[in-house]
């Protein structure tokens, strides 16, 4: 079914400075709260996604705040990040890899105060391992706030961690207003994990996927990944850049790198990243005496990524699972030819002439790398052209625009009342349904208690937050003065 809004979509997206602001708005400005355990100062894909999405929504005139947990030793309370993004660091302790314990109720006093004083209309929770995001979805309806959830990762169905997370997710996603996934594979996975099915309107026997599940890809700032201008010499450098863990397929790298070095005397490797598998790489390098062919950089800071990428002409990715693969996109944008394992959402992100796929098998990876070396040697890959093409594929303006449309649909839809929520929650099953309904009701009682204990009149409301026009004036003033100097 073609969308009716596509014409507005194509005109609305585009380079930022050329259009007057009125034309971008698909909707009236609203106040949005991004809620996730994963945010700056931690570094990663989700963290960056939240920051960039917030910045682009602010640019469109919305008010955006971020709510996350505190980071030791002293990052607690309210901080401001550069484009006028207010961040609330709630004093919760993370348990493992920056995620907090799912405890359902403890965040309500904080969230209620923050969401009310900031006049929030809509919350946007990120990442399925972020329990504070799930709690935000659970609490928001009490204040009449709408909910959107973005899932960034893929999970299986057969290990203990996945089973537990999936159970928690089914409960919270039952009553969420919209779900966004970063790839089509990610959507198939999330739909199954979160049981996002609903009875069809025509035939109540048939289950179909909810209408409120969207696919909006992750993206990058193409201008930050400009390809290296000078053409490569005789030696071809293969860049490998990721955390060195099992899931990133380091076993495949360890098996293939010495064979590629033996097959092609003019090929070198640069490996960036740190992790538990570093030791295996070191052993491999020592065993095959490849110290001068394989360079190990250790961990690479985000701002140095481009300089590492621009040293090579082929990017190798051996991940065993990947929801979107932003690293591949960054490398392709920087003009590298990509060789990747065909897993998860990776086949969706680039057209087939910019990437060589391999099965996660040693022989197949070797033949894919050989093919890539041949293409690069014969000049079959033009870095500048690849960069220009990716510029047309992905941009933050497009993503922000598509996300805004989801917000618009959510804001215009009817909100469920409590009885409907209880009925839907009871559909979860004879055990889980009752447990989640009890949680829902206790949450309501807790909220009523808080309404009495901290009345809304006593809250310190934020009246003046951010003035887009004033900001523009200041920026233009600064530009003028710098030009005069």
């Amino acid at each position: 079914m073609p969308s009716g809004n596509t014409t507005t979509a194509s005109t609305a997206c585009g380079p930022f400075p050329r259009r007057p602001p009125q034309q971008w708005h698909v909707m009236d400005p609203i106040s949005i709260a991004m809620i996730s355990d994963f945010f700056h100062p931690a570094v990663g894909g989700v963290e960056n996604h939240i920051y960039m999405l917030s910045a682009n929504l602010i640019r469109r005139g919305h008010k955006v705040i971020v709510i996350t947990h505190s980071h030791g030793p002293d990052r607690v309370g309210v901080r401001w990040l550069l484009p006028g993004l207010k961040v609330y660091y709630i004093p919760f302790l993370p348990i493992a890899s920056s995620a907090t314990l799912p405890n359902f109720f403890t965040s309500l006093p904080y969230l209620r105060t923050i969401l009310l004083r900031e006049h929030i209309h809509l919350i946007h929770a990120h990442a399925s391992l972020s329990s504070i995001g799930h709690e935000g979805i659970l609490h928001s309806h009490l204040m009449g706030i709408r909910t959107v959830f973005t899932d960034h990762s893929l999970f299986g169905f057969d290990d203990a961690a996945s089973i537990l997370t999936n159970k928690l997710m089914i409960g919270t996603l039952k009553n969420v207003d919209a779900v966004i996934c970063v790839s089509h594979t990610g959507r198939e996975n999330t739909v199954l994990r979160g049981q996002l099915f609903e009875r069809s309107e025509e035939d109540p026997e048939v289950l179909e996927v909810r209408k409120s599940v969207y696919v909006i890809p992750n993206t990058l700032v193409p201008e930050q990944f400009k390809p290296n201008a000078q053409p490569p010499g005789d030696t071809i450098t293969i860049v490998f850049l990721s955390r060195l863990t099992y899931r990133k397929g380091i076993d495949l790298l360890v098996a293939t790198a010495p064979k590629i070095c033996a097959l092609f005397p003019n090929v070198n490797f640069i490996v960036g990243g740190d992790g538990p598998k570093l030791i295996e790489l070191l052993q491999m390098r020592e065993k095959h005496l490849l110290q001068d062919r394989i360079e190990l950089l250790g961990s690479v800071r985000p701002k140095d990524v481009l300089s590492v990428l621009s040293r090579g002409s082929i990017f190798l990715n051996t991940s065993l699972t990947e929801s979107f693969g932003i690293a591949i996109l960054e490398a392709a944008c920087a003009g590298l030819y990509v060789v990747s394992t065909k897993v998860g959402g990776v086949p969706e992100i680039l057209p087939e002439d910019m990437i060589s796929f391999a099965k996660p098998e040693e022989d197949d990876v070797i033949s894919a790398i050989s093919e890539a070396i041949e293409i690069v040697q014969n000049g079959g890959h033009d870095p500048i052209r690849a960069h220009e093409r990716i510029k047309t594929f992905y941009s933050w303006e497009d993503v922000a625009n598509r996300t805004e449309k989801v917000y618009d649909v959510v804001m215009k839809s009817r909100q469920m009342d409590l009885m409907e929520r209880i009925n839907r929650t009871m559909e979860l099953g004879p055990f889980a349904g009752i447990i989640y309904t009890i949680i829902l009701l206790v949450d309501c009682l807790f909220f009523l208690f808080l309404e009495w204990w901290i009345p809304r009149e006593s809250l310190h409301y934020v009246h003046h937050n951010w003035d887009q026009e004033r900001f523009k004036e200041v920026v233009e003033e600064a530009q003028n003065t710098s030009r005069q100097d």
Partner: protein
Amino acid sequence: MVGNWEKVLWKKQAYADNYVPQGLYPASLQKNPNLRPYTYWPLVVLSCSITQHLAVIFVFLAVFVRLKEETLDPRSLVCLSVFSFFIGYITWNALDGSSRASEHFTNHLKTIKSAIMMFLALMSLSPVLRTLTAATSSDSIWALAAVLFSLNALLADYTVTEPKNAHEGLSSVLSINAAVSASVVLSSHLPTDASVFSLVLFSIQSFALFPSLRRRLQLLPIAAWLLTSLVMEVFAIWLFATLSLVVMWLIASVLVFVTFFAPAILLWAQRYKNILRGPWDVAVPKVN
């Protein structure tokens, strides 16, 4: 003109972001790939290793009761143990297809030496073992022994193949430990040093040595394997028949249940098996 929907992210498509292609969704979902459904009779044959283990536990308990009531002479039990050790050892060697003949003689000498050492050590320890938990009340001992024997049956290694490394064999080591501890706590309720010695010797025979023999017996033709199981089960039931009819019916029903009903339950439960596979699963790297 609207093109067909494609499963790609890089292309600007004329479909809304929440568009779901018609037909079966999710398209890349595989349900129960490579599933080989079980069939009933092979399961029954496999379940025999569990019933054999249970039968050994029941035989051991019957022997304990007889020793405690002094209806069984400990010296004849010792003789029987030594005799069955030799029978078992010969069978174990006869079923061994892999090892070379030249090493056999030194291996036999080593085995006999360690067997004699074990025998003497147990003999010298038996007075200590007899008083070890004598001060503990009988109720606690029965409960403890019951828990330890259940642990033994739960953790025992029922697989056909021999464990390749120490880590795989961990649960079976725990299982042997549980059974030997159970027999030690039980033996302190026996009247004489000789009976303590005979019981602990018998427990090592049945819980430490028999499982490795059982693994080799399982490689026999099915008829011989079933016959061994049947003999052991009947023997266990017969030992209890003269002690208590109620217990006899109880253990007989347990053995029948494990052999015939447990496989049927597993077959029935298989209809709920639902393995979901798709591109989101962590791939298994194939390295030569």
